[in-house]
């Protein structure tokens, strides 16, 4: 089986995230970049499926030069090869362009499964997996808390508002996973060493057959007009419970007209 996992480098989960005043794009230089948390679960799921059914796992990432660290991280967990789409023209791409680039990088390589995280921690749009499925014209099995592969079919449990839906499709398919699905492994020392020798192909936009004028901030179909930091919330009132904590909250809620 051929499995691709799409991973994004994002600012460290705990880092304060800011937009750059000059062009309203996310400041990706200041904080440490890490593998998007949910994508660790995507990598883990890909590795488990490959271990159970045989196959090869390719990591695909679009991002600036330092996103190479993120590709290596996924390789050190056990993935076999990487594709890093890196091009200055991509800076400021919207979801439309991002999905086009990922689809171009994935197309025609014979992947049976293309696995994503269900959401990035920076932009949090939760749209890229669906948009890539739309572009590739293949089945979309997203928000999976469970994935099982049997023959040429893949079945997932999609988390819903009311519980979950069981959804099945023939491969190839796009899958996205939620964090309930597994427990991602830590890269071992051996894995880290091995990752250094694994092949990573670095591609530019034109090498994917796309027009550089169709990606990046200038080509985006949505634009930021302006932004501002929200004034920090004034510190609240914190009291220690001395037997009347519940009553004090009730008084506060009465004041605020909730009761």
């Amino acid at each position: 089986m051929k499995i691709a996992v799409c991973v994004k480098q994002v600012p460290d989960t705990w880092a304060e995230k800011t937009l750059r005043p000059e062009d309203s794009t996310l400041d990706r230089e200041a904080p440490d970049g890490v593998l998007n948390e949910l994508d660790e679960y995507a990598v883990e799921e890909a590795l488990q499926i490959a271990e159970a059914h045989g196959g090869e796992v390719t990591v695909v990432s679009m991002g600036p030069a330092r996103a190479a660290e993120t590709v290596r991280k996924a390789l050190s967990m056990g993935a076999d090869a990487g594709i890093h789409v890196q091009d200055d023209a991509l800076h400021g791409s919207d979801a439309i362009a991002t999905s086009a680039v990922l689809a171009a990088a994935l197309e025609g390589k014979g992947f049976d499964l293309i696995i994503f995280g269900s959401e990035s921690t920076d932009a949090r749009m939760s749209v890229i997996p669906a948009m890539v499925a739309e572009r590739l014209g293949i089945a979309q099995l997203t928000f999976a808390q469970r994935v099982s592969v049997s023959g040429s079919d893949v079945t997932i449990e999609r988390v819903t508002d009311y519980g979950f839906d069981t959804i099945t499709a023939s491969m190839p398919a796009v899958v996205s996973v939620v964090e309930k699905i597994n427990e991602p492994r830590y890269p071992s020392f051996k894995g880290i060493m091995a990752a250094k020798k694994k092949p990573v192909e670095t591609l530019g936009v034109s090498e994917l057959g796309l027009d550089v004028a169709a990606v990046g901030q200038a080509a985006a179909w949505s634009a930021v007009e302006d932004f501002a930091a929200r004034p920090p919330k004034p510190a609240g009132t914190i009291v220690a419970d001395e037997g009347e904590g519940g009553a004090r909250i009730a008084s506060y809620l009465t004041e605020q007209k909730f009761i």
Partner: protein
Amino acid sequence: MAPVLVLAEHDAANGAVKKVTLELLTLARRLGEPVAVWFGAGSGDALELLGQYGASTVYVADGSGVTDHPVVPMVDVLAALVADVSPAAVLVPSSADGKEVAGRLAVRTGSGVITDAVDIDASGVATQSVFGGSTVVHSKVTSGTPIYTVRSNSVAPEAAPTTCTAQPVSVEVSDVAKKATVTDRTVASKGGRPELTEAAVVVSGGRGVGGPEGFSVIEKLADSLGAAVGASRAATDAGWYPHQYQVGQTGKTVSPQLYIANGISGAIQHRAGMQTSKVVVVVNKDAEAPIFELADFGVVGDLFEVVPQLTDEIEKRAN
């Protein structure tokens, strides 16, 4: 006035119109003439309510096609409507389905998409609250038919009564939609509480609740306030409360008037789902818990002492 398509979300089980739909109709009126799009069997009650909030027409797309396959049939119907009626914009709720519908529709119709808008003005400029609410962004779609997903509880629904007529639309499920099939739906018990993402008040419990029995304390407080119950991942993972009540990055995003966090430490992934709540009340026995940074009012104490007392007080004051 150009029509504005609104995906009318409703309860899968009983067909009740969700509040977010009325919020979307309210926003849509700023941009043009709101027209609802309904997936499933319509009902007289729904028709009346949609009319109450200004929808002159509701396109009803019914048939097994829309329920047998996830997400894509809705895109098929909306894309056909976009071509037919040339709407000024398309508004969908920021649910998992809604975002995916929006993303695919954007690709298919050659349009820009903005997710998680909390407001839209008459010129189509959307407000997004990003990075856990620390930054407010104004953005605009610059190409195609603007597609927005809107977070629930972002605006107050305003009535604008009109007569709503239902117009059936044919559902032509595309081949790509048929590639994935829903074989089973598992509905976890729901209880009589308001829905988490729509509730004006949410009362949540975390690891500090100590076990499944502990949640009865949380539920009693919730019921005294007519609130929904939420939980942290620590609580849902331990099996103390069902997964669909998880609040946070990989659970629900809530934005209620009042959020009461009990025995929750305030991990960044939890905050991601509740940080835009208007008023936050915290009960936690550890004064250092990061959740206190978000509190408008906090009590450092044992939730098993504080919460039952609060519930009693509320019941007393209500009588």
